[in-house]
């Protein structure tokens, strides 16, 4: 039952972050997902990333659509406000929330069914609108909650649990996000926490639309031979373009890395992304190169993971709209209501 809080049995020496919080302070209700579901590992990575970044949980707003994946925000950051909206429409709700208060951290969690089918329109427009958010797609190639239908990200030729072969072409949400103007695009695997946690940290520090497409096997409906989203398949076909570390400005670690092997990307909030290059030719600041690279490797049957693209000078929706620094939801009557004098003047013009 999801409303059971996790028992707070803490050992006294549990590590604390700069806020004095332990990892437990970033957890939520007990998950009701199937044991072994990739989505739970993603939740754990989110917890780790927020703990590492010393984020105050109540400053995060976590929003989702509908699906197993969209249930997960209940299972992390119990001290954050959450919003489980309607199927496929989380991006617009998140956009509205971000318009209301630019000072919170927005985390959108969605499924591949939620984002690539019913919600693809909203997905696309939130990316092109420059909403400042971390948008995580928990991508398992199936509809988990409705029990195993193919989703629009399922590879052509892959097999369902019932043995049906998928005849439709897949949608690559990372490639799509790149085309649509997302300014931070990554792909990862739920089983690779070492890669995923820094990617989430980088996204949370990024000022603009950040997409992380996380392959997240559905143990119940899509973890069999013939599936291209099973744990085994993803592990065998995964090629990482880089490893990411996120260094907050106050952190002195950056000096301890030997120069040459690292690329430093300073983000808007001052955090520094350190990209450890695995593929010597890979340039994460080249949007077109990233799209090409994805497609070339996909043709070879490889799944490219890592930080595919980042624009460290990105600007978000609020800059485009030229809104005031103070969150709109905190402007009082005096700032909003022009009052009776202004009306009198207006009346005079309308005669």
């Amino acid at each position, binding site marked *: 039952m999801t409303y059971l809080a996790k028992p707070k049995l803490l050992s006294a020496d549990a590590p604390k972050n700069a806020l004095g919080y332990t990892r437990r302070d970033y957890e939520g209700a007990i998950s009701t997902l199937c044991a072994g579901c990739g989505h739970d590992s993603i939740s754990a990575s989110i917890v780790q990333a927020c703990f590492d970044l010393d984020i105050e949980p109540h400053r995060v707003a976590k929003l989702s659509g509908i699906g197993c994946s969209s249930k997960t925000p209940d299972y992390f950051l119990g001290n954050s*406000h959450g919003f489980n909206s309607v199927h496929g429409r989380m991006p617009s709700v998140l956009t*509205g929330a971000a318009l*209301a208060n630019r000072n919170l951290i927005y985390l959108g969690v969605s499924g591949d069914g939620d984002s690539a089918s019913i919600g693809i329109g909203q997905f696309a427009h939130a990316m092109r609108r420059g909403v400042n958010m971390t948008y995580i797609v928990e991508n398992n190639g199936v509809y988990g909650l409705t029990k195993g239908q193919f989703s629009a990200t399922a590879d052509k030729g892959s097999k369902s649990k019932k043995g049906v072969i998928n005849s439709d072409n897949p949608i690559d949400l990372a490639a799509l996000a790149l085309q649509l103007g997302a300014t931070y695009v990554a792909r990862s695997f739920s089983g690779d926490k070492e890669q995923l946690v820094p990617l989430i940290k980088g996204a949370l520090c990024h000022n603009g639309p950040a997409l992380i497409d996380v392959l997240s096997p559905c143990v119940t409906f899509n973890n069999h031979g013939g599936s291209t989203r099973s744990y085994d398949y993803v592990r065998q076909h995964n090629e990482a373009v880089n490893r990411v570390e996120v260094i907050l400005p106050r952190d002195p670690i950056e000096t301890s890395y030997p120069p040459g092997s690292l690329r430093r990307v300073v983000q808007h909030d001052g955090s520094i992304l350190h990209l450890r290059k695995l593929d010597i030719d890979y340039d994460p600041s080249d949007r077109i190169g990233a799209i090409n690279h994805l497609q070339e490797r996909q043709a070879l049957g490889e799944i490219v993971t890592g930080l595919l693209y980042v624009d460290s000078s990105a600007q978000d929706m609020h800059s485009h709209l030229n809104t005031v620094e103070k969150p709109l939801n905190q402007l009082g009557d005096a700032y909003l209501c022009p009052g009776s004098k202004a009306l009198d003047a207006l009346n005079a013009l309308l005669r």
Partner: protein
Amino acid sequence: MTSAQSIESSNDFVIKFANVNGSGSSSANELFARAVMRMGVPVAPRNIFPSNIQGLPTWYEVRVSEAGWLGARGGCDMMIAMNPQTWDRDVAAVDAGGYLFYDSTKPMPASKFRDDITVLGVPLTAMCNREYTDPRQRQLFKNVMYVGALIALLDMEFSVAEALIVDRYRGKDPLIQANVHALRLGYDYVRAHLPCPIGLTVRRADAVGDRIFIDGNSACGLGAVYGGATVAGWYPITPSTSVIESFTSYCRKFRTDPDSGHARYAAVQAEDELASIGMVIGAAWNGARAFTATSGPGISLMQEFFGLAYFAEIPAVIFDVQRGSPSTGMPTRTQQSDLLACAYASHGDTRHVLLFPENPYECFTFGALAFDLADRLQTPVFVLSDLDMGMNESLCKPFDWDDSRRYDRGKLMTYEDLEAGKDFGRYLDVDGDGIPYRTIPGTHPTKGAYFTRGTTRNAYAKYSEAGTDYVYNMERLRRKFDTAKALVPAPILKKAAQPTRIGVIYYGSTSPAMAEAGALLEADGIHVDTLRVCGFPFCDEIMQFIADHEQVFVVEQNESGQLRSLLINEGEIDPKKLVRVLHYDGSPITARFISGRIADALSDRKISPIRKVAS
């Protein structure tokens, strides 16, 4: 071809302009209407326009009425026939004894006229061709010229129209000169060549008072500014688009931070109506006042989100400017046909708060009020306007605002409340009015966070499929809806001069026609009490009004009698008691139509409307 009995009327007539869409006639037509108004005579103009941008016929009708009747009257005393495409129709539309004004550059054969009307020809095209070389100027100034001609024909003061041009183009002297010149050309030609004034005249009066002249959509946009809206998510649709245009332009004026030049508002054009209402819900969940403006097709698309906002208890304001339906219907014609779609929007047992303004003044006041109600009740609130009210300028009371008024943000649990240890159950009915407390995201580091969802939950917002939790919640929502009864604007009762067993219920833009219809009926010795419904849920006075009358006519502008259905459903009223008076051809309802239907029905049913007064 002057008829023997030409219509003679001062300050009480209808004049219609037949134009081609895209010919730039609308500003000239409006200039005429305003000139009448500046002479102290009330006008009620209406645009009748097609759903296209250029080339199709369009009409602009100006009712001149010193008595102050602002509803559509029907009929036409004078036609300015500037559209060859609709010539035959326009000639036929003139009332017997009326006047036809046309461009006589190419004289028409007698067979193209009627002999019971007065024809007035002015060679507008020829005059323009002589005066201007640029084709666009020829077109635009032709319109100004016929306004000049009308000023002379109707015996109006030239200086009034001239002053309007000066006001309109203030600071752009060449434009002022050019327009006044064209106006003068038309005026002088008529004075020199036609017998004027004609039987229709405008005499200076003092019947406008301090009233203002504005369209409902602009007033809704202004209402949203005064109501404290900071976020608008929207998608273009006729006839609602100008609500947002007005909101943003008033915001640019009133909500630009003087120091930084930054905006104290955000209006985002969404990709569709689903996204626009989604943004509104997200913003309102996060503590901003947010709204959208749409029309029928948008209402259809937003249904799932309305259900979410209702059940998850999130404020939202929706301006629905109704148009001809169903489906794409008649996009540029008026109706009141979204009533049921809004009242019960979304699947399941949902019901929503509706407000029914009657004119631009109430578009403003109800518009601003909607944000207080949405916050107080934590639910969507619909402001139901329509094309007739929304897109036509209308005379109304000047806007006013009480500076001591503060926004009612409803039941918000603050950081201090949480610190003080107040029990926070997001869906707890603490006060017995069905309205729970909410927290805004980010309020407190460790207290007050909750999970919003469209699925069932218990009073502490925890997911629950327990029937008892569900029933508690539904009963509380019902209580909340009952609470809303006292918060929506009360109905407006007008008693007849004599006691009567007949009642009439109506709402929204039917109002001006209904006021006049009441007077027409009274002149015929038929007395009716009228009740204007201003909001939903229906308060007890409405049900009492029905109980107090033997027969109640329900006047509305749709085909099925949606207000009547809603009354029957909500008040468990005997359907036989409520008689439909329905107008739904897309044109605004008229006083003649209402009074005619009521009088006919009464004579058919042989119901005497007048109760014998005991002596």
